[in-house]
């Protein structure tokens, strides 16, 4: 761990909830006995009214803030925004950050052993939806004895889970904070996901998803999937500013090795991802993204889909995000206004792209900190 930092939640220990019940899934299957791994930051107050649930995105996990050990150099994926005095202020809130079912190195997923067969789930792990995740997170809520989340907050795929919470468990969520999300994927979004999946599935070392038993991982496929994804997380301007056409050796070599800095960056991002992520999980996460469409249940009307919701909504988008552009957030906002729900919307001027939600632009942080401060005040009043 770097310098002791008063703004860090410090060293955190993941916890595990062993769920013994059978949970039905949208695909028609069930999952019997599973683990939900989660971290918590801050302190649950006496009346258990200050709990905030953080929903993670495609490549996230339960380790959202703080450090795993004294020697850990990298904090959790949303450490910039969670901690004492930060946007999600752990001096006021008890933050719960679970790893989604189907994930890697956390909650039960394709890389876990099936309790009956003793084999890795692999391709037998059921395909999950945002509703399934929310259902499992609700089991965690009950286990923690939390009547209602003060807020559920998430970016990207996490924002979709927030919307699902507001629809599926309206009385369990007081505030819904939806960041850089979309009400459903566009054909272009699905197309990118499909290329990522094909890269993984056609890797000779994929072995129909049973690569664990062969002692290999489909490195090339997963790396390509991540490289492709990474392009969609950054804006054209951000890539230009960061790399331009800079050459690694200062000259072109008329070959296919890494020449441009951007190539080097993408290869690094792809290669390091392989070491910390599972290919089957990547497939599952992209499918959950593709399937998300709450309006599908209500004849295409998103306003009708939101009809059960009682939460107050705060929707945030970033101007340079082209993966889930501001127009997509405005679709959410328009539906909420049509449905007569309480909603605020901030469109943050940004440069980086989709990944801006992980960072700390002053207007973004100030807006959400102010919103959450109000949440804390309302609770105390």
């Amino acid at each position: 761990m770097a310098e002791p930092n008063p703004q860090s939640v410090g060293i955190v220990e993941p916890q595990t909830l062993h769920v013994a019940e059978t949970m039905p899934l949208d695909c028609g299957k069930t999952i019997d006995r599973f683990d939900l791994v989660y971290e918590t930051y801050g302190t649950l107050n006496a009346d258990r009214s200050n709990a905030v649930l953080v929903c993670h995105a495609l490549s996230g996990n339960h380790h959202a803030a703080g450090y795993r050990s004294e020697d850990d150099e990298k904090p959790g994926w949303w450490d910039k925004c969670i901690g004492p005095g930060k946007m999600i202020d752990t001096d006021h809130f008890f933050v719960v950050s679970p790893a989604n079912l189907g994930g890697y190195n956390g909650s039960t997923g394709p890389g876990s052993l099936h309790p009956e067969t003793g084999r890795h789930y692999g391709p037998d792990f059921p395909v999950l939806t945002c509703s399934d995740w929310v259902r499992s997170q609700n089991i965690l809520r009950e286990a923690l004895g939390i009547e209602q989340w003060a807020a559920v907050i998430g970016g990207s795929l996490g924002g979709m889970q927030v919307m699902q919470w507001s629809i599926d468990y309206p009385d369990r969520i007081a505030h819904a904070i939806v960041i850089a999300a979309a009400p459903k994927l566009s054909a272009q979004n699905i197309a990118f996901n499909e290329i990522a999946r094909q890269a993984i599935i056609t890797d000779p070392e994929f072995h129909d998803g049973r690569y664990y038993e062969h002692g290999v991982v489909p490195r090339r496929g997963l790396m390509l999937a991540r490289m492709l994804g990474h392009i969609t997380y950054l804006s054209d301007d951000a890539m230009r500013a960061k790399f331009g056409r800079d050459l690694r050796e200062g000259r072109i070599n008329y070959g296919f090795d890494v020449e441009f800095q951007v190539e080097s960056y993408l290869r690094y991002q792809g290669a390091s991802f392989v070491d910390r992520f599972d290919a089957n999980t990547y497939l599952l996460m992209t499918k959950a993204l593709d399937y998300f469409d709450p309006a599908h249940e209500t004849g295409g009307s998103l306003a009708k889909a939101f009809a059960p919701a009682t939460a107050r909504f705060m929707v945030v988008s970033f101007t340079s995000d082209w993966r889930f552009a501001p127009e997509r957030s405005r679709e959410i906002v328009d539906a909420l206004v049509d449905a007569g729900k309480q909603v605020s919307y901030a469109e943050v001027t940004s440069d980086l792209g989709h990944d801006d939600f992980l960072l700390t632009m002053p207007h973004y942080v100030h807006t959400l900190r102010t919103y959450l401060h109000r949440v804390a005040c309302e609770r105390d009043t």
Partner: protein
Amino acid sequence: MSVPAAPTRAELRPELALISDWIAPETRVLDLGCGDGTLLAHLHAARNVAGYGLEIDADNVIACVAAGVNVLQMDLDDGLSQFESKSFDYVVMSSALQEVMRPDLLIGEMLRIGRESIVTFPNFGHWRPRASLGLRGLMPVSRTLPNRWYDTPNIHLCTVRDFEALCRDKQVEIVRRHVVNHAHQSNVMMRTFPNLLGEIALYQLRGHDTD
């Protein structure tokens, strides 16, 4: 920690206090260019009015969030087509008419979305701007029009007569008119010669298609 109290009528900017008097309790209001959300916060607390504010400035959006006002960060010049017809009881626009690209189209949209609309603007027909331009030959700078010609956001200034001519052309019914001076007071003279003596004009409007 506790929630800051909503402003009382006495704490409102005079123009907003006058507008608030025209809004019935238990109604739905859309406030275009809602600033820091004072009007909506007051209407919610005092009259149980539900509403949304549209605002382009990020710091104002944060002020609205702090006040617990529903605020949507949007540019009025992008249009209001996302709002359903007759989905609000009132659409309010206070001192923003002169800043938008097409005031005529925006008023049309306000009348489509709201059962009634409330519009206020600085009256360029007041004797002071007239005197500045007519006698001194200078673009007016005053308390109600504090900007100079080169840095003003006011791109479509109009007079009371101009505005009423537009209403006639578009068959807009003027339900109420109120003109005040910069201190937001009115008198018989102002009511008799609104275009010459009114500094700020307030209108309550209704579209001709309203049932």
